[in-house]
């Protein structure tokens, strides 16, 4: 079963071109998207989430073409943490998470029912935010803020969660924390997760599937242990390095070029 399937996806935005991207994201797995800065990872996620209109090709979510979804319907199927959040309004953490219930209500209704409260509790619980739920979201640290935004996405109770660089601005302890929480969600609820990562070690350790993007095209895909090779590092990042695995973690040892 595939959660997301793109077929010959194309997009031109200024000088950047996404040229014929075809990927499949398996259901119930964690998929990592890696690639250099500016390679089109965020663009790809935005296309999948319906935030950008493709210039060609098709996207299928849970067996149904993206174009066939109403916005609210899609928001019950797929949630996303965008890369750069805008400044948050003056809200408590719980109020922020509660916005995740919007797709289940009409555009004007504001009452939360028992099911909503349960989903919000669950989302905050999973993100370890219960004790912060009455704090103003603006006063959170970077890591807490990231988790609050993920809690909002979780409260949407979707089968698919897209995360654009959720760990980039976190220290290693918070990175590992978040990765553990996410893999717990994936294991316990079969949540399909697609995340943009820069850390290949974490991609290999936590993700069952890896897609590498370069200059708007997919250049590698498959199980991380099989994909991450010296050849891969040369092709995607243009670096010469040796790769050795220690348990699930790849050790990447750059071969330094002589100084000119």
């Amino acid at each position, binding site marked *: 079963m595939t959660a997301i399937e793109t077929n010959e996806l194309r997009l031109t935005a200024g000088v950047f071109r996404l040229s014929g991207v075809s990927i499949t994201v398996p259901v119930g797995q964690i998929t990592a998207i890696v690639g250099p800065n500016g390679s089109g990872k965020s663009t790809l996620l935005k296309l999948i*989430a*319906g*935030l950008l209109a493709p210039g060609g090709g098709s996207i299928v979510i849970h067996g149904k073409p993206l174009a066939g979804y109403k*916005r*609210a*319907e*899609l*928001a*019950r199927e797929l*949630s*996303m943490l*965008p890369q750069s*959040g*805008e400044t*948050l*309004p*003056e*809200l*408590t953490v719980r109020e922020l998470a509660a*916005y*995740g219930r*919007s*797709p289940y209500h009409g*555009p*004007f*209704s*504001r009452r939360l029912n028992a099911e909503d409260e349960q989903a919000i509790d669950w989302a905050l619980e999973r993100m370890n935010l219960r004790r912060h739920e*009455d*704090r*103003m979201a603006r*006063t959170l640290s970077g890591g807490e803020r990231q988790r609050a935004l993920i809690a909002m*996405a979780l409260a*949407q109770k979707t089968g698919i969660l897209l995360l654009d660089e959720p760990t980039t601005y976190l220290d290693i302890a918070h990175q590992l924390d978040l990765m553990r929480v996410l893999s717990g969600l994936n294991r316990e609820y079969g949540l399909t997760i697609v995340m943009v990562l820069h850390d290949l070690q974490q991609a290999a350790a936590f993700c069952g599937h890896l897609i590498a993007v370069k200059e708007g095209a997919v250049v590698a895909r498959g199980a991380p242990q099989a994909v991450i090779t010296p050849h891969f590092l040369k092709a995607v990042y243009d670096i010469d390095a040796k790769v050795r695995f220690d348990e699930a973690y790849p050790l990447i040892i750059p071969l330094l070029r002589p100084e000119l």
Partner: protein
Amino acid sequence: MNKAQRTRKRKIAAALMPPLLAACALFGLTTGSVSIPLREIGAVLLHGSSSEHAVILLEVRLPRVLIGLLTGACLAASGAILQGIMRNPLADPGIIGVSAGGGLAAVIALVLLPQWSYLLPPAAFVGAFAAALLIYGLSWDRGASPVKIVLAGVAVNALLGAVMNGIMVFHSDRIQAVIPWLSGGLNGRSWKHLGFMLPYALLGLALTALAVKPANLLALGDQSAKLLGQRVELQRMLLLALAALLAGAAVSVAGLVGFVGLVVPHAVRLLIGEDYRYLLPVSAFAGGALVVVADTIARSWFDPVELPVGILLACVGAPFFLYLLKKRSHWR
């Protein structure tokens, strides 16, 4: 501001608004070229009377105070909504030309169809909406930057003003009806005028209840609102129409009264935060109170001259606008 402080501030604001509004209304009823004591107001309102004071009260001051309340409430609510959808703290129906659009349409109606004065509010609504769409289209690029919106507003304002002047030059015989209206004031407004605006103002103010949720979601940013299943473009259009309806209702009777929609929501936001559940109603109350007080001062302190309230509000509002512009100069 933490949650407890916020809750306390909201409660205080909600509890304070009705008495504040009542106090301002009474100030407006008692004060003027003749002052009418509270006791007498009570007697006239309860038992009726045909004294001279009763006539002043019932035929002049009461409708004027009510018009002032509605005008202020509509302008403040309109400003609060515009600031939300344009994601811009400087949006105000007066500054960005929404009022001018309504004003031009109203001038056309006044000059060309003087016998159909009940058409003023719908004409003002259409004009205000058209101007809002124009400014929105000119300045929107994934968010309307303060600078762009002000520039587009200035340009649209100038254009609309020129057209307005042109119409008045060509129909100089009929501008008598237009001039007092243009300067933005409530001089000589009566029950008839209240009747014009009342249905539109009440409709607009009632619809703000529906604006709360979309406005709050838009405050998360377009991208987040879309991810939460919102039809952002449609909602923004509907909110724009509502802001135009509110501004149009105010403009159709009070003329070009500026800065209420800027100053009031801003002050309210500072006090109780930006949640539209509270921001919209509290702004409406505070806007009504402000216009009534300002109008009362404008008509009584400069005796024998009656200053149009728009002039007084501009004297307070323009410096405030400049202050905001300066304070936010780091915003693109």
